[in-house]
């Protein structure tokens, strides 16, 4: 036990090493052993990770941004609780990190991004993150990675009702309801989510006057509603599903503390309606999936002071089909087609716009030898009537130690990203002549897992990657007095990810630790993007170092969770002369689970930012100090 504690100390001490200097070429990660969660049905050769459902349940009252930020190597750029939070994976931009729901991309083709702060974490049953080339198994364009939210039936469960109200500081209230019922062949799943917060937290203002003062954050209210209804029917080799997801959010947008509060404040209202019909057929070595989806998104932003009243309506129709056949014990073939029609009405374009993107995939998985498997994917995309240069992904899994579940994974991929509709058509500044971005991704992963002393499971992974995104689209000053979208530069990001999972249990206790460290070097490749030291300048708001640890211990009815999140130095200017200091946020939860027959009552208290630090994720957007939450989960199963 003493050794285990010392081992934890080694891990936690990592961020102590000189605040993980950006200058250093060598990163000491200690003696870590690393794990990854292997997923089936996706391309080998690159890393993927799954967020455990027990972890998701701890975020029932939180957003996907909180969950992903605390439990993965995806960096979340957050403007504060309830406000815009965009993911950045492997040093790429938010536009290179996709978000999908049951394999259907839900990020906006207008912005190419998703706001994770308005997606409730508890609505998902499983969350998988596909890094690099592996993201092509869901969709194209996500060179950094892709977050896939899965909602699915549980055929082993006849019925379930769950209520999870929670409350916390700063007027924070949430309620998640889940109901599952059905028979052996039919299942209905209903989920509802309500959330509201004043977010009127105190923060230290040391910039407005000569002496620091504590102020209260203003104009930060948020309210959200979400509802999911899913129907599943299966018979023999067939399965039909219908899913509907309504979600809305109304927010006041706070300004950075360097700007006086606006009166009236800026507001943003988001509304999404997503529906999906899917048919699955599986017989022996053949499977077929047909999915159609209709997604309607609305985003209204208002800033009366600047006379901005932006109204945006987006409708998408998506048709997707996948045919999979195991030709032999060696060869598995997969053919897929994906068509997405997007229709946009907005007062920010000159007129109504539409775009159709059709893609065809042909993929082969080869189990060449017991110790070697490989795959190849070819994708051709047709944008309206234009054939684009094909994309590909090639990977291999090598099992060097015979029967042991240890792998060396190799992947090389080309993943293009089509310009967003705003990049093309925004008035003024949209540029219809933009070229698509081309991302080349190379990575190698060492994936090891072992069981020691009977019940101690240790999994580790270590990944090195190199991304190069050519023709990066950015907005820059145009010929007149407004900015214009253009293909300006190449983005190069490279780095390493190291993860370790340790689990052990005994007759009355369980212990789980998941820990990850990420080192990222990311910057433009242009000649002007090199500092006087000759070092490539780091992309703004991309931390060179991140470290997070999740530790959960259970003893009899009691449990406790501790989360540490270290975010390294982030430059806030292109010249890398202004930076935000590193910080570590520590959260602590403790609870008791009471079971009575088929009911479960889980009472939990939480302290976020237990050491009460003042910090900023984005410059001049303060984050909350120490705050408390309480939640009660009541669940009854049939």
């Amino acid at each position, binding site marked *: 036990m003493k050794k285990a504690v010392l081992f934890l100390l080694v891990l*936690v001490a990592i961020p102590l090493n000189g605040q993980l200097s950006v200058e250093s070429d060598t990163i000491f990660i200690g003696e870590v052993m690393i794990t990854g969660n292997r997923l089936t049905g996706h391309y080998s050769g690159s890393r993927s990770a799954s967020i455990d459902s027990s972890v998701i349940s701890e975020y029932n009252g939180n957003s996907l941004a909180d969950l992903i930020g605390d439990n993965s190597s995806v960096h979340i750029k957050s403007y504060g609780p309830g406000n815009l939070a965009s993911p950045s994976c492997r040093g790429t931009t938010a536009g290179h990190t996709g978000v999908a729901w049951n394999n259907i991309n839900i990020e906006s083709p207008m912005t190419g991004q998703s706001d994770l702060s308005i997606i409730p974490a508890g609505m998902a049953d499983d969350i998988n993150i596909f890094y690099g080339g592996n993201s092509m198994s869901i969709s194209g364009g996500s060179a950094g990675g892709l977050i896939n939210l899965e909602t699915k039936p549980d055929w082993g469960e006849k019925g379930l009702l769950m209520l999870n109200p929670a409350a916390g500081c700063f007027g924070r209230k949430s309620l998640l309801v889940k109901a599952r019922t059905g028979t052996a062949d039919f299942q209905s799943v209903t989920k509802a989510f309500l959330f509201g917060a004043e977010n009127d937290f105190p923060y230290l203002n040391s910039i407005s006057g000569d002496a620091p003062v504590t102020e209260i954050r203003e104009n930060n209210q948020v309210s959200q509603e979400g509802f999911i209804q899913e129907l599943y029917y299966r018979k023999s080799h067939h399965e039909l599903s219908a899913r509907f997801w309504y979600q809305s959010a109304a927010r006041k947008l706070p300004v950075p503390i*360097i700007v006086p509060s606006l009166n009236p404040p800026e507001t943003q209202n988001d509304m999404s309606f997503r529906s999906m019909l899917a048919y699955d057929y599986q017989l022996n070595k053949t499977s077929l999936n047909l999915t159609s989806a209709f997604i309607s998104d609305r985003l209204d932003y208002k800033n009366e002071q600047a006379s901005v009243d932006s109204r945006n309506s987006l409708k998408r129709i998506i048709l997707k089909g996948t045919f999979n056949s195991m030709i032999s014990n060696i060869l598995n073939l997969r053919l897929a087609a994906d068509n997405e029609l997007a229709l946009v009405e907005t007062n920010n374009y000159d007129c109504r716009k539409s775009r159709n993107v059709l893609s065809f995939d042909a993929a082969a998985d080869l189990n060449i030898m017991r110790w070697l498997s490989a795959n190849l994917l070819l994708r051709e995309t047709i944008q309206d009537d234009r054939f684009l240069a094909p994309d590909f992904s090639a990977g291999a899994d090598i099992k060097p130690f015979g029967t042991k579940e240890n792998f060396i994974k190799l992947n090389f991929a080309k993943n293009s990203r089509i310009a967003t509709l705003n990049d093309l058509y925004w008035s003024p500044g949209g540029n219809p002549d933009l070229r698509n971005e081309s991302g080349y991704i190379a990575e190698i992963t060492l994936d090891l897992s072992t069981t020691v002393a009977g019940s101690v499971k240790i999994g580790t992974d270590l990944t090195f990657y190199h991304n190069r995104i050519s023709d990066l689209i950015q907005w820059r000053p145009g*010929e007149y007095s407004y*900015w214009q979208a253009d293909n300006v530069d190449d983005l190069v990001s490279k780095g390493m990810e190291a993860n370790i999972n340790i689990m052990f249990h005994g007759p009355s206790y369980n212990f789980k630790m998941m820990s990850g460290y990420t080192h990222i070097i990311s910057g433009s490749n242009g000649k002007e993007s090199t500092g006087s030291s000759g070092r490539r300048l780091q992309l703004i708001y991309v931390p060179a170092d991140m470290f997070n640890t999740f530790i959960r211990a259970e003893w009899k009815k009691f449990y406790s969770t501790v989360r540490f999140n270290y975010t390294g130095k982030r430059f806030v*200017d292109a010249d890398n*002369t202004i930076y935000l200091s590193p910080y570590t946020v520590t959260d602590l939860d403790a609870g008791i689970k009471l079971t009575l027959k088929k009911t479960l009552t889980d009472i939990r208290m939480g302290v976020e930012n237990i050491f009460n630090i*003042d910090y900023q994720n984005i*410059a001049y957007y303060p984050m909350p100090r120490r705050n408390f939450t309480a939640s009660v989960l009541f669940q009854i199963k049939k």
Partner: protein
Amino acid sequence: MQKSFTVFILALLITSCVKEVNPVIDGLDKSYLSGQGVFVINEGNFRAGNGSLSFFAYDSVKLYNNVFTEANRRPLGDIPYSMGFFGGKAYIVVNNSGKIEVANRNNMKSIATITGLDSPRYISFVSDSKAYVTSLFSDSLTIIDLSSNSISGYINIKKTSESILTLYSTAYVASWTEGNKIMVINTATDMVTDSIEVGYEPESMALDWNETLWVLCNGGWRREHFAELIGIDTRTNEIVKRLKFPSINDSPTCLQIDSEGRMLYFLLNGVRRMSINDESLPSQTLVPQLDHLFYKLGINPFNNEIFVTDAVDYVSKGKLIRYRNNGALISEYEAGIIPGTICFKEFTDSTSE
């Protein structure tokens, strides 16, 4: 076991300490502001709070950056936009922070902060006790009481406002954004007395030796109107000269005048110069833009040197470029992000120390 746990908790506490919550500037140098020189207001990016103030010192022939932050250990604000000097004080108009920082012009130590302004742009000192401040969003000018450094009133001009010039007891205010008027205000009564219709989007103004007000109308970003240079006789408020730029795409900015009040300068694909007596616009540049992105222009009123700021790419550090009056390059210096308005400072004013 207990010892290990204690070390563990200590490690957490140490890593949880944040040295500085707000953005930190690497390599903040001691600044020397007492001599003659040129202030450059670096606007920074919208809502990024990375605007700053630079000072080019003739003594050391060096550009000192972040001089306000260095003097006061706090950032200047969001989008510092313009600056004026009065009574040994510098008044720095910080647009998106809605404030004016009043500082000693010789050391930049803060004296007062005037808050509560609505998107302020320029300041003009209309008397010993009063200044007017224009606004990008508000239909009113704000009146500042210079003795108490506070807002003392408003003048509703029913239009947003940009550049402002005061001659004797008359202030001329340009309504820039989608406007085409110069509002005339009696500074004794704070009343609008007249308005002069000019070209579309009057962006900048200059006053010549003959008290002719020159107005550069940009034409607007939609390029639906031709840009114009207009001369107004301030005695009659009548337009006496009207020169139209030849191409609808011509988008001139930043009208300036030399120390004698006889030569006009502005930016259009470089620095252009013309006499106030010319009957046509200059077809050639005095200083070609080349691979720079010229953003603002200033003519030193003491020696007619030409100073131009280069915004580079609007996100990286910009440049201050210094030319002789004949357009020959003297030197260039690294400034802050989006270096904008240039303000010339005379010799040390010892009374204000």
